[in-house]
């Protein structure tokens, strides 16, 4: 139906006065990809999206869409369409006129543009509300109108700024599925800004984790989850324990590190500088209760908190040089034994479950 465009961001920076929102990031988003820009608030993900859309000037660097460098083009001539966080529907226009707005700006005849807008509303199953104003619609319906308004321009890339943040949790999950279906059927590139790692994992082909104006990792969801590149990614994606220490031995793809007060841990990773700082990540769902088969793959911890979550139980431990270490046990395993807050418990994990994390050059 539509042509998708590759988006190429080449060392793009955004500086607001004294502060740098985006620091020379480079990223290639292949055509037809569902890409999620993920990160905490203030990490520069929205600035990046707005620079792709053309609503924010680029301080330095270039953005290419397909074969066109769009750095200095106005939003409407980039072949992108943006869906705003609060949807930004025109309150004084009914749905048809909202959706037909861009056609009106182009000078399309009234009958023709209303017809096209109605077709688009029909696609979004909103034709019954065509003569209503946005304020008379629910959040989910407003979002579909915003989608219709963005898609009527026939964009090569759709840019979504936290599209699901205004919806209640139940609707969020439904609209998420709808977005994914839409992207698959249209085949165009979607760039979606979110601070929810769950949303990003559910939707994205490519997750770009950002922090402090930099890209920490850009990879497929499975890679980001299983092999987080940095301590930040591991912490932000959740379900990982990060242990920081100094490298004491390295070789055969295994790094041994020592934490502040003596404990030693082994993790899979490339050679590290002996004596240099090292972070490792241990998957919370791979932690078992029991003594380790091998030194460096476990420690004794004191239970500091127990949270029952239904099918799983979340336990938090403090140990020698390791604080707030989380283990997710399935409920059957947990209830086979009696563990109370304050108990000392041996913890262990498999050799493949601990990996060395990289560090971004500061």
């Amino acid at each position, binding site marked *: 139906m539509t042509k998708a465009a590759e988006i190429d961001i080449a060392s793009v920076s955004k500086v607001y006065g004294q502060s740098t929102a985006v620091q020379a990031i480079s990223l290639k988003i292949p055509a037809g990809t569902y890409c999620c820009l993920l990160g905490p608030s203030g990490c520069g993900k929205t600035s990046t999206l707005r620079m792709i*859309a*053309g*609503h924010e000037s680029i301080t330095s660097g270039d953005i290419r869409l397909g074969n066109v460098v769009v750095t200095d083009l*106005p*939003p*409407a*001539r980039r072949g992108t*369409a*943006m869906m*705003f*966080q*609060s949807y*930004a*529907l*025109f*309150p*004084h226009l009914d749905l048809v006129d909202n959706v037909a*707005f*861009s056609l*009106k*700006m*182009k000078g399309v005849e009234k009958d023709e543009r209303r017809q096209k807008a109605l077709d688009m509303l029909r696609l979004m199953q909103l034709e019954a509300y065509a003569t209503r104003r946005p304020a008379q619609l629910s959040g989910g319906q407003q979002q579909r109108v915003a989608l219709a*308004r*963005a898609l009527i*321009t026939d964009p090569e890339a759709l840019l979504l700024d936290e599209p699901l943040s205004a919806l209640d949790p139940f609707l969020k999950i439904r609209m998420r599925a709808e977005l994914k279906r839409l992207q698959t059927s249209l085949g165009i590139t979607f760039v979606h800004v979110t601070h929810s790692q769950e949303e990003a994992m559910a939707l994205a082909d490519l997750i770009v984790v950002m922090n402090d104006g930099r890209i920490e990792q850009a990879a497929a969801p499975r890679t980001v989850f299983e092999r987080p590149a940095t301590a930040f990614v591991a912490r932000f994606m959740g379900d990982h324990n990060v242990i920081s220490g100094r490298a004491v031995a390295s070789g055969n793809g295994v790094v041994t590190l020592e934490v502040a007060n003596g404990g030693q841990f082994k993790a899979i990773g490339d050679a590290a500088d002996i004596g240099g700082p090292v972070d490792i990540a241990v998957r919370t769902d791979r932690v078992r209760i029991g003594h380790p088969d091998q030194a460096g793959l476990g420690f004794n911890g004191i239970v500091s908190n127990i949270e029952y979550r239904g099918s799983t139980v979340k336990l938090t431990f403090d140990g020698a040089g390791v604080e707030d270490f989380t283990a997710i046990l399935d409920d059957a395993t947990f209830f086979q034994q009696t563990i109370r807050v304050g108990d000392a418990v041996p913890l262990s994990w498999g050799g493949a479950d601990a990996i060395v994390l990289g560090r971004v050059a500061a």
Partner: protein
Amino acid sequence: MATMTDTAIAQPAVRTRKPGSRIGEFAAYLQALPLLVILGTFLLLPLLMIAVVSFWDYDFAAMYPDFVTFNYTETLGSWVTWKTYLNTLKFAVIVWMITLFVGFWAAYFLAFHVRTSAMQTVLFLVCTVPFLTSNIIRMISWIPVLGRNGLINSALVDTGIVAAPVEWLLYSDFAVVLAMVHLYTLFMVTPIFNTLMRIDRSLVEAARDAGASSWQVLTNVILPLAKPGMAIGTIFVVTLVMADFSTVQVMSGGQSASVALMMKNQMSLLQYPAAAANAVILLVLVLMMVAGILRIVDIRKEL
């Protein structure tokens, strides 16, 4: 569907109303009482008296309680009245158009081009500076500027642009309109500024994203959304101009007339019932104009 749920929620609330809530209701009325007393004494009662007096009889010395309609028939039957009303309406329309134009752009500049809210506040306060002095003084201060030997005329004559002083600058309809625009533009700026500030800036971005030029953003997004503010400003300006007598008197040098000026003259001749009838007619006319404005623009969301 929505209304069904609303009533479903509302009904139990009615049923579970506590027996003691009569006292609560009474307290609510008590709280509204001071305003009621003030409005009743100082607005409704005087209006009622004017309406009553407008049916009284009078001669050169006194008024006689009566029920006669000749105050109205005389007023409406006189071509002077019609001319005066037309003249007042003319001022209202001209001043309205100019203040709307100037007011909108001033508000637009304040709302969209001044970046910091501190600067917005400062500039807005600057707009209100003329209000630190009285209307009359602001009006009179035009005289040395516009007069035969005033600033403008002496400058024009001295530079040789005109041979003799321009006569129509002062004591003319031009002077009246100028002074009224000066006095009343802020009443247009304030409500429009208020509505413009409430426009979500992402709407402008969304319009740009859809390919709108600056002009298209203005005509398709900002102007339609500024309508309620314009309506409120229009009500202010139109009612003020319709009721004005001092500006017309001072700035036209007595050469132009307005309805309020006509009433003032009637009162100075002790023709109170005639002035009262005139006041009732003016009130009805202005109320009709306000009703017309409210029919065209829905301002409820602004209040």
